[in-house]
């Protein structure tokens, strides 16, 4: 009992100290070349969704920002900071709105609770095409409670709605809490990294993955940029 208490105290100290000496990795994701033109989505078959969009939305396979920046890239620590067991207690939420997935890519920790909400007036179907994890396929009529699920293995899972073929998104199930998805401008930020050697990976659904090795020594901000080669088609 006593030893356990001591151990716990030590552990707390360790965590606190590591937080005190937390480093940050930040950077920007860009592309070179010409990305394929994103086509507007014809939601004609689902009028309740079509009228939510003044101008037709395009598909979100490749979302670019100003000055060749690339959005929707998942940047995460793939080795060096395994957070096994530190599953965040709050759930992540995946929303279906206007026959789109919000967000397009949803990162989450292994075993973190995932809540799927239907905000539309139509039935959606959620079919994550998991290969490593257990595959399931459920419909969600309007007005039904959120679907609650969990994934117990890390995987990038393509999500599709069987009812609306254009609806595609991703679950990024990661074994770490250190992740970010590049937003407008392609910026990402991985804060609170204790000193150590890290491999960070940038993943894009169409352009593949890139990795970089970074060592954090103390309270510092290291910059790491990623550049993907765009595909014309």
């Amino acid at each position, binding site marked *: 009992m006593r030893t356990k208490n001591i151990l716990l105290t030590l552990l707390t100290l360790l965590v606190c100290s590591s937080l005190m000496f937390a480093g940050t990795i930040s950077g920007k994701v860009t592309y070179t070349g010409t990305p394929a033109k994103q086509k507007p989505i014809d939601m004609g078959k689902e009028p309740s969704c079509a009228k939510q969009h003044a101008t037709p939305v395009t598909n979100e396979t490749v979302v670019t920002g100003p000055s060749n920046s690339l959005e929707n890239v998942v940047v995460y620590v793939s080795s060096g900071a395994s957070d096994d067991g530190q599953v965040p207690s709050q759930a992540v939420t995946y929303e279906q709105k206007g026959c789109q997935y919000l967000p397009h890519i949803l990162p989450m920790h292994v075993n973190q609770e995932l809540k799927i909400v239907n905000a539309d007036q139509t039935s959606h179907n959620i079919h994550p095409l998991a290969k490593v994890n257990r595959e399931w*396929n459920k*419909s*969600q*009529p309007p007005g*039904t409670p959120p679907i609650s699920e969990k994934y117990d293995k890390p995987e990038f899972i393509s999500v599709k709605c*069987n009812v609306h073929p254009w609806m595609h998104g991703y679950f990024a199930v990661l074994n770490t809490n250190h992740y970010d998805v590049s937003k407008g401008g392609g910026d990402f930020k991985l804060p609170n990294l204790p000193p150590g050697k890290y491999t960070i990976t940038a993943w894009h659904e169409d352009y593949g993955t890139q990795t970089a090795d970074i060592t954090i020594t103390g309270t510092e901000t290291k910059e790491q940029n990623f550049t993907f080669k765009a595909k014309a088609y």
Partner: protein
Amino acid sequence: MSEAAAQHGPPQSFIWKYVFSLDHKIIGLQYYALALVAVFIGMFLSWLMRFHLVWPNAAIPGLQLLSKNGAPDGLITPEYYLSLLTMHGTLMVFFVLTNAPFAAFGNYFLPIQIGAEDMAFPRFNMMSFWTTFVAFVVLLAAFVVPDGPPISGWTAYAPLSAIGKDAGPGLGMGQNLWGISIAIFCIASLLGSLNFIATTLDLRAKGMTLMRMPISTWAWFITSCIALLAFAVLLPACLLLILDRVAGTSFFIPAGLVVSDRLQPHSGGSPLLWQHLFWFFGHPEVYIAILPAMGIVSHILINSMRKPLLSHKVVIGSMMAIGFLSYMVWGHHMFLSGMNPFSALVFSFPTLMITIPATILALIWLGSLYGSRLQITAASLFALGFISMFVSGGVSGFFLAQPAIDIYLHATYFVVGHFHLVMGVAAIFGIFAGTYFWMPKMTGRMMNETLGKIHFWLTFVGTYCIFMPFHYLGLAGNVRRYSSFVDDFMAPLMPVHKFITIAALCTGAAQLIFLYNLVHSRFWGPVAPENPWNATSLEWTIPSPPPWNNFGGIHPVVYHDPYQYSVEGAKEDFIMQNSPEQVETPIPS
């Protein structure tokens, strides 16, 4: 003469008497009970469907207990609607419409009506019931597997039914169970048909010539001939379907299919092959459901009219013609399926030709009513209702038999209305008529006539209220098998759907009267005499209920044609088949 009698003596213990009984009467009752369970489940499923169609956002409390994923918070999901639809169709077609009029009544009365002690192969008979029961349990098991029951409809069109779970929920384990269940059912039906045919041909009593068999016996006999060939085709078809699903073969799955973003590893299969095999079974199946009902209704009507039909031979001939033609028309289900457009014209003609024997039957029934002494009982009301339903459902077949019109009406509610009236309701009316007529013989208790008549009025008016509007919906182009009507042109038809749903709920509730009457009469009804309806056929010559060996060890001898009612010069207005009474024959002038 009677091998059957040699094979089993009177059963002693409960389990041999009521569970694994070799007695065709017990087996008939078992089939009836199974069909009764199946019909109430099937009806309940149709309630859920009708309810969901018109109140899509209303939760059905407690439904989530049946399926957590299929009905979260009691709201039916699109796939669960299709599961209900598939299970409704499968239960009703296989376990009700095939089991009740054919297997249940046939088992009970075919041997008695021909004067036999039992079926030709009592052990096969027992096996065929228990095989059916296994098929039933396997099918229902689909409700409890995680993905739920299959969603491919009772026709299980490939490749939707063949691909597996990529194609949607319920198409994994649920569809496997469906295929296995139907394959088992095929085996059971083959055994049953074999028994019926051998019994009819070999075990008739002395004097029971083929033409002296009652029309109901003829109907069961013709039906078993149809069933023998039809289920013999469905069985290999199910086998191939199961192999496509579990063994990776490509009988029905063509190359290059992309389902749920996955390229399916199959090549060269033919989806139309499944349709051909299925409908080669499926169309005769319609007659498997309706022919016994025709036989039962004729049998009852003659008794109620106190005179035979205009022609015994023409009725039997027409039923045979229907049975024969039923094998040449399967293509009319596939006019728009992409088969050669010429073959549509080829299939259209025999389909239209079936109207001729069907019309003859209807005209004979109507013509025989003329000048009769029609007694109104619950049984005869249902028999008359059958004629009305058969005509109503039959005329719509005239539309669908023509490929050009089928272009517009195919896969609309018109088709649903058509087959529900002619195959579903008409056959069920036959079952009801048979129940009110024969239950005294089967249980030894009379059923309550007043309740029976109330049941008839509610059911008769109710079913018309349900199924007539289906035709109007079809004419407006309302597509079938939709779990909700998001389409602009179907939304204005909602009031019609509401009307149908309310009628369906009421008519369904009216069936509880029947259930009450059945159960109450079984235990507390007045004791039935031997021949309560003053009928002529052999089943009325023996006690109610009959002893285990039917005729008490005596072999009946038949002296008369089956329907000797109102014979001039006879002592009473009927002469039983085994009565040695002779009447001077008036010489036809």
